[in-house]
């Protein structure tokens, strides 16, 4: 089974609002986490990553938060735009060469 999962399979957000996508992981030994964005019919694209020695990392309009105590990861998207509509996956590194992916959250941006 998958060691990484998502709290909600879908998220609908008004354009301009902030989005929060959540992810739970089960392997406390994981030390590296990534968020990917996948548009329909395309391969996943890297958004942002974070290592376990950090609890927050910011990128352009995105922030990833890591709470190792409860094994929770979140992705925040500021001022959500129509182009942010996609499926978002969290992934964890549970050994040296592999990433395990969650089931994904579909984000739909309402105009």
């Amino acid at each position, binding site marked *: 089974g*998958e060691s990484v999962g998502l709290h909600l399979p879908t998220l609908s957000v008004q354009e301009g609002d902030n989005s929060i996508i959540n992810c739970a992981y089960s392997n406390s030994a994981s030390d*590296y986490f*990534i968020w990917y964005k996948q548009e329909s*019919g*395309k*391969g*996943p*694209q*890297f958004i942002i*990553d974070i290592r376990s020695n950090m609890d927050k990392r910011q990128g352009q309009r995105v922030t990833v938060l890591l709470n190792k105590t409860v094994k929770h990861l979140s992705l925040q998207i500021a001022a959500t735009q129509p182009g942010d509509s996609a499926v978002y*996956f969290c*992934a964890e*590194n549970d*050994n*040296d*060469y*592999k*990433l*395990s*992916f*969650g*089931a*994904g959250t579909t984000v739909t941006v309402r105009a």
Partner: protein
Amino acid sequence: SQTIHQWPATLVQPVGSPLSLECTVEGTSNPNLYWYRQAAGRGLQLLFYSVGIGQISSEVPQNLSASRPQDRQFILSSKKLLLSDSGFYLCAWSRGGSTGELFFGEGSRLTVL
């Protein structure tokens, strides 16, 4: 810069026919290479990964196989396709040595009829 190519982009095959999906990476050497499968509306399932030429690790038992004949070439094969092999297949690479960011290809959509 590094690029990854996989082909064909779409494929419709009858049950029992063979399969060959190819993936090549350019602009880097000794990458880790991966094949993932994604069923409709689902997450990514790791099928195979390779840390070097001729080195293949299989994650799930199935009628698929993988080969790495050259440093930057990764091939996914089957001798006889099943209906359940239908899906979206993604090749990916990461920098050799340890896991970091995975860079994905554009995917190959396989429909087995």
